[in-house]
């Protein structure tokens, strides 16, 4: 049995450029795998290391996701194959489009009964993809999964952490699981893994390849703007530490917050 791990490749939020008019640009941002998706990939790789089967990493997006550095990064972290569904209309895909494409791609794969997802994407963080993909496939869907292991063929035991309680559940396959970012620590790729990565297969599919002819946008994006910032005084208190602290305490007293 093979395991799919869905990863979002997106502009790094750290590289966002905010204009003086509040405009937001990702033009110079570096694209990478989302930080929440790395633990999902690691969880998939660890399960496959114990129980066998391939780990297939899957991502969908515009041609910006198709960069050799990113592909190598994913494959050096233990995935056996990478499948990319590339189409420019996926640039601003909302959750329904993304889920439809990922579900169609998984449907096309052979012998897959388990899909992992991160807690949310690094750019949009809707926290919806795992549930929507799983439901579209007709699989069992769960989120907030903090631990996972096989107990018998076709059955997983998972631990799930909600706001107020922890649950231990038996999960029959097929299943789509969104994991928490502390499910496991993502590995750093070894030199050997990096060298091996370039020999692993990368499969590129178009929308047509997965049987999607028309991907109508379910949501219209009207505006993207930097959130209003509270204006701050920006006073840096100089002098020795003692002087700066004294001045700080005086100021805080004046502000009435002490």
């Amino acid at each position: 049995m093979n395991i799919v791990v869905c990863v979002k490749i997106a502009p790094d939020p750290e590289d966002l450029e905010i204009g003086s008019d509040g405009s937001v640009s990702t033009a110079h941002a570096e694209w990478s795998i989302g930080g929440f998706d790395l633990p999902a990939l690691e969880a998939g790789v660890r399960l496959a290391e114990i129980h066998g089967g391939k780990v297939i990493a899957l991502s969908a997006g515009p041609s910006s996701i198709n960069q050799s550095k990113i592909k190598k990064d994913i494959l050096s972290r233990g995935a056996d194959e990478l499948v990319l569904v590339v189409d420019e209309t996926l640039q601003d895909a909302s959750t329904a489009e993304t889920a439809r494409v990922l579900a169609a791609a998984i449907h096309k794969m052979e012998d897959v009964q388990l899909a992992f997802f991160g807690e949310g994407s690094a750019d949009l963080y809707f926290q919806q993809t795992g549930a929507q993909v799983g439901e579209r496939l007709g699989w069992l869907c769960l989120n907030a999964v903090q631990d996972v292991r096989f107990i018998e063929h076709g059955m997983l035991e998972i631990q799930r952490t909600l706001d107020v309680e922890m649950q231990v559940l038996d999960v029959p396959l097929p299943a789509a699981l969104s994991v928490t970012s502390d499910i496991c620590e993502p590995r750093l790729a070894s030199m050997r893994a990096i060298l091996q990565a370039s020999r692993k297969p990368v499969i590129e599919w178009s929308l047509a390849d997965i049987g999607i002819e028309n991907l109508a946008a379910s949501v219209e994006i009207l505006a993207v703007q930097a959130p209003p910032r509270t204006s701050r005084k920006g006073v840096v208190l100089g002098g020795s530490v003692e002087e700066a602290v004294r001045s700080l305490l005086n100021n805080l007293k004046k502000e009435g917050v002490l």
Partner: protein
Amino acid sequence: MSDQNQIFVISEEVSLIGELVSAARQLNNDGFSTIAAVVIGDQSDVQRVGSFAVDQIYWIEQVPEGYLVEDVFLTLWELVNQHKPTVVLIGATTSGRLICGRLAARLDVSAITDVRSFEQVKDGLAARHMIFAGGAERLERPRRLPVLFTIAKGQFEADIVQSHTAPQVIPVPFRLPEKRAILRERKDLPPLSVNLAEAKRVICLGRGIAHQEDVAQVEQLAQVLGAEIACTRPLSEGLGWLPRERYIGISGAYIKSDLYLGLGVSGQVQHTIGITNARVVVAVNRDPDAPIFKQADYGIVADLYEVVPALIQGLHEA
């Protein structure tokens, strides 16, 4: 058949329904729709929700023993299918997100999650939510009905409406799901140690704290200052030095304290989004170029290990 336009509010957390109803009422300012709440709970929960002036209550008395609250999905799906609401508002809890995603998939619509506000636009309804870890806000208009939103906690205020006709209460039997996970064990997590959103003063620790043992030093300062201790996400989720409820930022707490004192906090947007409503922001960091200084009222460029004892002493003398 389709009823009059309905807005559904759904949450397994009865305490969130008041906020959801307020959001629904904002969307219904023309009064063309009725507001229906789905309540999973007992008679007292139904009464509580009734006080928020909803028109209907779909009452699911109980999720059977051994089932997850999310197993209510099939029951909800049938309600949605039968009544065809135009808008469905769901509380943004872990379970709410799962239910929302499954509904969205079956309805072939997108869900917009953690909505912070709504806007009426020419062609209908648009919702605002954070993207890029709080670095930007996006305004989006769903193009297909029904519209699915999850509502971030604390964005709308629950109103108890005094003179309202009692809602129509419609009992709905729980439908057993087609497939489910088997619950083996369930354990209550320890109660949350703090509600940072209510704290008057907050001291926040960042990566500038070198060792877990050093947290004790800062606790001393917190005691003198009467402040709660908070942290940035890596100290909680990465290092586990402080519990989850103590981290400030995009997926953590949003504070509105009088004072925020950041110690060794660099000031990345994922974190600072959570302090925009603090009244006075103070930053201590060794790095004069740390972005936090641009978003602080008062900054001290120094080693926090020198500043903390000096602050304790200064506060004692004051």
